[in-house]
């Protein structure tokens, strides 16, 4: 029984940060039709920025509770700086090209950002441990859990609901949905499509950076964090169905649980349990769980 609870809670915490990252990835794909390999780089930059911001907050003698605010600010700053730079400065020149070619453009972006991150923050690991102890510990049965993990779960739920609410209940969201459906028709109805692209991409980057910033306390922030995140979040959105918010949630849960199951039951399989799940899902649902199959054009 204890083992089951452990697996569930571990899976849930893993799923929650994964969801925050993946929902950004799936949003960018839904709107811009770009599978962004550099998404993991934005995650890493978010984590680095959080490390810097939290350290800065500490030197400013902010109360420890404000390190959460500092991490949030870090994510906002990353989105505000990186989104215009990459979307306006680079990606817009490639819109409308083949999807796989766009993957390569973002692969190039990933390579560039990888070195830029190293140039800015160096190769040594950063530790952001202060926020991790903010929420104390929680006792469930005989086991103790770090409160921060549950905070992450709550954050993921808030992020998910917020994205859903904005998309389905606000004017801007409805416009975005129209662009997702058909950018051409939306443009002919007077929608400023490139502004929607810009906004969606910014939100996507913000979510990646948010995921990075809030996982920073749980990991050591060092070169290489981006590489690992990319394929895992890809697996999530592919399982859920590209461009689907619900899919990202379900995909994150599946991947999170699969991973924690593997960690606790068969540690050998930890590294590839996720990909096996993904391969199995794709075998039976080639378009992912939450994706309607599209008619092929002759």
């Amino acid at each position, binding site marked *: 029984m204890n083992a089951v609870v452990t697996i569930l809670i571990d899976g849930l915490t893993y799923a929650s940060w994964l969801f925050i990252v993946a929902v950004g990835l799936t949003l960018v794909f839904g709107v811009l039709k770009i*599978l962004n390999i550099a998404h993991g780089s934005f995650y890493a930059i978010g984590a680095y920025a959080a490390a810097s911001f939290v350290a800065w907050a500490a030197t400013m003698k902010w109360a420890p509770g404000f390190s959460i605010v500092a991490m949030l600010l870090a994510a906002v700053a990353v989105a505000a700086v990186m989104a215009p730079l990459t979307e306006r400065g*680079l990606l817009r*020149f*490639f819109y409308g*090209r083949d*999807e*796989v*070619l766009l*993957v*390569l*453009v973002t*692969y*190039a*972006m*990933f*390579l*560039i950002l*990888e*070195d*830029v991150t*190293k*140039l800015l923050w160096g190769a040594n690991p950063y530790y952001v441990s202060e926020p991790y102890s903010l929420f104390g510990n929680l006792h469930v049965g005989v086991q103790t859990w770090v409160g921060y993990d549950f905070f992450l779960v709550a954050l993921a739920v808030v992020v998910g609901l917020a994205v859903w609410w904005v998309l389905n209940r606000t004017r801007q969201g409805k416009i975005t949905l129209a662009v997702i459906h058909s950018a051409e028709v939306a443009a002919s109805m007077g929608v400023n499509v490139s502004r929607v692209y810009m906004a969606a991409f910014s939100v996507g980057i913000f979510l990646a950076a948010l995921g990075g910033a809030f996982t920073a306390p749980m990991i050591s922030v060092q070169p290489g964090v981006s*590489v690992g995140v*990319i*394929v895992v979040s*890809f*697996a999530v959105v*592919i399982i859920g169905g*590209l461009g689907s918010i619900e899919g990202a949630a379900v995909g994150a849960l599946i991947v999170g649980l699969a991973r924690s199951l593997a960690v606790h039951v068969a540690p*050998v*399989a*930890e*590294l*590839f349990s996720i*990909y*096996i799940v*993904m*391969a199995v899902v*794709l*075998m039976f649902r*080639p*378009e992912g769980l939450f994706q309607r199959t599209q008619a*092929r054009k*002759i």
Partner: protein
Amino acid sequence: MTASATAASAPALARATPRRFGVVLLAAAAFVLLAAAGYVFPRWLTFLLTMAAGNGLVSLGIVALMRGGVVPFGQGMVFAAGGYTAALLYNKLGFTDALGLAVCGGVAAVLVAAPFAPLLSRYRGIFFAMLTLALSMVAYGLLMKLDALGGSDGFNVGRPTLLGQKLPDDRVGYTLYLLTIFVATIAAVAMRVFFDSTRGLVTLAVRENELRVEYLGGSVRRAMAINFVVAAFCAGLGGALVVLSLGHIEPNFSFWTTSGEFVFVAILAGWQSVAAVFIASTVLEIVRSFSSAYFPNTWQLALGLFLLFVIRFLPRGIGSLWTKRRGH
């Protein structure tokens, strides 16, 4: 069915035969030239070209798939399959012949890839790329965990022999260089012949419009599956040859960034020219070794900018510089 297949292949063959002769001649000339040049080249340059030819074989396979409109992002798996097979045969069974090991590597890669070929042939675009990526990452995870295969450190491979001859210290680099460019030349010619064959042309048609190919009686899925297996064979050959020259193998052979570099070369080359693949591969090796020597911290940055430049200004690859536009 048979009649239509013959009718379709007749003009293709008629065009291909004189061209094929020219290709063989050109390839033989290129091989002789490179072999002679390698004799006077400094050691680092022959090593660089060996790596370029070995890695180029993997990208050659990717080009075979790209002609059908799909890009595999996990060729690292078959590359590693070839490499590990050669290394294990050498270390565990004492089979040391370099040419034999290379062929075994190719065959092993085919055996690894073949079960997945029918499955993957159903997928296109991003899904194909991601599924192949997932497979290579599963392989990576397995290789990391299997202590019998050296785990995350991998293991070393000794010096191979060639056709029963031991390779002395001063000649081993050059001999492996000769072998690698020899295999690469053969593979390049074979690939050119394959591309110009009926099946190769069907692949091109799939790229244009696969539903029409189905209506005309061609099997899209079979073409894709065969291309995948062919690509695996090339990658396995490349993996084995690279391992023999490097003398070391590790799970990173199957990591997705390795696969990304192979795709990089294939995109840089474009899908029209076979020779362009090896030129692109050499360009990558040169960029890699010079930037890691002169600006070690920013070589990925240089690579990324270079890739962006190619996609933006040379969307059909460097092969398009000398290949005439045919029917486009």
